[in-house]
C-alpha cells in the first residue's frame, strides 16, 4: 500500500486501464485433469461440482454402452458416463482396468448433472486461456463431436485435450432424439 494522498481520478482511470489490459493478456483458467486411455483430458473447474469415490452404480438396460447406469450421489440420482468408452479409447488391453474407475467427477450445470468416471485422482492445473489451441484446426473425429472439444493445451511436455462436458451432453441428447 502506498501512502500517496494525491490519488486523483486520473490515477484511478489509468490503473483500471492497466488492470483490464493485464487480464486480457493472461486470462487464467483452472482445469481438472484426468486420464482417459493414455491421454490427458481436462475440464474447466467451473463445470465440476465435486469429485467423489464412485458409488455403486445401478445398471440401466437399453442405454448406450458408455452410460454405465445411475448412482446415488448425495441423494441425487445421477447418470454415470464412461468417456473412455464413448471416445473409443479402451480397445487395446484396457479390459483389466475396467472395474478400476475409482473416482467420479460430478459435472453440473443449471440444466444437467452427470457423473464422469475416472481412474486416478484428478489433478488441477492453471493455464493461460491464450495457450489453448482451438479445435477448429483438427480433423473432425466422429465420435468426439467437434463442439464438445474446446481444444488442446500444451503445458511443458504435456498435452491436454480440453473438453466441454455440457456441450457433450447436449450433443448426446440431440443424437438420441434424432435416432428416435
Amino acid at each position, binding site marked *: 500500500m502506498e501512502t500517496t494522498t494525491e490519488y486523483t481520478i486520473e490515477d484511478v482511470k489509468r490503473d483500471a486501464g492497466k488492470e483490464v489490459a493485464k487480464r486480457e493478456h493472461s486470462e487464467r483458467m483452472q482445469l481438472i485433469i484426468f486420464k482417459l486411455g493414455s491421454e490427458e483430458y481436462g475440464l474447466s473447474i467451473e463445470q465440476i461440482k465435486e469429485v467423489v469415490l464412485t*458409488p*455403486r452404480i*445401478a*445398471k*440401466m*438396460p*437399453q*442405454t448406450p454402452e458408455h*452410460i454405465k447406469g*445411475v*448412482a*446415488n450421489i448425495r*441423494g441425487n*440420482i*445421477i*447418470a454415470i*458416463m464412461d468417456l473412455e468408452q464413448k471416445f473409443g479409447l479402451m480397445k487395446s488391453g484396457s479390459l483389466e482396468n475396467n472395474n478400476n474407475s475409482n473416482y467420479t467427477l460430478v459435472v453440473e450445470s443449471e*440444466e*444437467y*448433472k*452427470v457423473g464422469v468416471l475416472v481412474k486416478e485422482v484428478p489433478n488441477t492445473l492453471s493455464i493461460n486461456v491464450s495457450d489453448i489451441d482451438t479445435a477448429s484446426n483438427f480433423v473432425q473425429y466422429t465420435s468426439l463431436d467437434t463442439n464438445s472439444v474446446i481444444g488442446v493445451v500444451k503445458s511443458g511436455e504435456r498435452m491436454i485435450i480440453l473438453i466441454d462436458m455440457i456441450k457433450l*451432453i447436449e450433443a*448426446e*441428447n440431440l443424437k*438420441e*432424439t434424432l435416432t*428416435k
Partner: protein
Amino acid sequence: MGKENEYKEIFLAEAQEGHEELNNLFTELEKDINSKSAINSIFRITHTLKGNAMGMGFTEIAELSHVMEDVFNEVKSSRLHLDSAIFSSLFKANDILGQLINSLNTGEVVKYKGIKTKLEVLLKNAKASEIVSEDTVKVVETTLTETITQVSQTEITTTNTVLETIEDTDEDDSIEQKIVLSDVVQVPVRKLDALLNIIGELIIEKDTLVALNIERGYQSTDLARLHRITSDLQYGVMDVRLVQIGFLFNKFHRVLRDVAVIENKKVDLVLEGTEIEIDRNILKIMSDSLVHLVRNSVSHGIESPQKRLERGKPETGKVTLRASNEKDTVFIEVRDDGNGIDLNVIKRKAVEKGLISADYAKVISDDEIMMLLFEPGFSNAEKITEVSGRGVGMDVVRGSVESIGGKITIETELGKGSVFTLSLPSSMAVKGALLFELNNQSFAIALTHTEAVISLRKEDIHKISTGLISKYLGKTISIVFLNDLFRMRNMHQTVEEGAFHKTFENIKEDQKLDVVIVAYNKHLVGFVVDKLMQQKEIVEKALESPVQNVELFSGATILGDGNICLVLDVAGILKNLFKEKMNAKIEI
C-alpha cells in the same frame, strides 16, 4: 375435525380478513371520497361476506353486510354522497360486524339492529331520488365468482394459527380494538411442494437407518416410533395439499354451457361426489384433460335436441361428472347419455388412417378398438368444429393421466351413452410399489399397474411364434422374461424373431418362476423376474438427462441401503410391445 367445523373455520378466517380490509378501505375512502377502487372493493367484500354468511346460516352477519352492500351500491352509482356522518355510521357498522364475527366463537350476544336501521334510513333518503338498477349487481357477481375460482386455483387454504393485527382506525369510538387471531392461513402451493420434497428425503433417510439397524442385528421394532412419526408427518402434509374436487367440478358449468351453445345442443351438467378430496397438483394436471373429455361428451356424445326426441330421449342431454374413491385411488367419471361410440366407425377410421391393417381389423377385439381412440393421430371428429378442432387429442388426455400413474378406461353402449373413467392416485408424492430382483439388481413396479403375483413352471409356459403365452384365471396372457427385454439395445428389437424366447430356452424344466402380472389398457402381461421382494412405499424421482428418455423406466428411487432402484414404466413398455406387434402384422 368435522366438515361443518372446517367450513366455519374457513368462513371465520375469510370474514375476519374481510372485516379488517373494510376497516382499511373505509379509512382510505374517508381520505379520498372519490376513490373508485376503494368503493368497488368495499362493495365486493360486503357482497361476498353477505353471500358466505347466508350460506352458513349466520343471519345477523348476512343482514348487516347486506345493508352495507346496499349503501355502497348507492355510493357506486353516485346517488349517495359520502359525508362525515355517514362515515361514522359506517365505521360503527363495521365494528359491530367485527363483533358479530367474533361472537360466532364466543357465543356473545351483539346488538346490531340499531346500526342496521340507521343505515337503512340513510338508504331510504337516497333512494327517494331514484330506483336501484339490478344490472350492476349481476356484473359484479360474475367477476366475483371468477376471482374466487382463480384464488382457489393457486392457493390452498390450510388450517393453522397465525397472528394478524388489525390496522388502527382513525375512529376513536368507545369500542375497544382487539388483536384478532385468525385460525386459517393461506399458503402458496410451492411451499407445500418444497415441504413434501423434504419429507420424501426424510423417508429415505429413515429407511437407511432402519436398514442399518437390521444389519447390526437390532430389532426392526426399535425404530417403530421414528417410522410412525415420519409417516404421520408425510400424511399430514399430504392431507394439507388435498382439495375438494368440487373446486374443479364447479368450473364445468361454464365449460359445458359454452360448448352446448356452439353445438346448438341442450345439456345439463350433474355433479356428484364433489366432496371427494384429491391432491391439488393432480387436479391441476388433470383439469385440461377433463375439459377435453367434457367437451367431447357434448360435441360427440350428446345428440341434437331433435335427434334425441326422435329416439325417445329427453330433449335435454345429461353430462355427469362423478368422483368417488377407493383406498388411495380417486375415480373421476365423465358420463353422457348420448349416442355412445360406434366401434365399427372407429375401426374403419383406424384402417383409413393406417393405425391398423385391414387384416388385423378383422380380428381385433372390442377393447382394443376402444384403445385406438387414444392413439396419436386418431380423431373421431367427423367435422372440425370450434370445439373438437383444438388439437388436443385423446392421446394427450391419456398421456397426462399416465404421467401421474393413472389409468383411463371407456365403457360405451351404442345409443345409450359413454363413460370415461379416470383412475387417479389421490396423492402424487408417494406410491406403493412391488420390488423385485433381476441380475442382482433391484427394480420396482408401481402397484397401480400390478394385477397379481403368480408362480409358474416352465411347462406352464408355451412358445408361440412371436413370444410366450400362459394362462391366468382362464385367460391367455403374454409372458415376457424381463431379462430378454433388458438385454435388448432398444425397443425395436422386440419384433425380432425369437426375441422373447432366449431366456426361456435356457431354464430348467422344474424351475419355479416368479411372475408379476401387470395390466395396462386391458392388456395383461406376465413379467418373469429372478426373485420377488417386498412391497414398499417409494418416493419416485424423475430420471434426468442423458437418461431421461429411456423407455423402460419412468423414474428411480433410493432404497434404504443407499442403492438405486429403477422403476419400471409399465405403461410405456406395454404400449411399445403391443404397438410393435401391430406394426409387425402390417408388415406381413
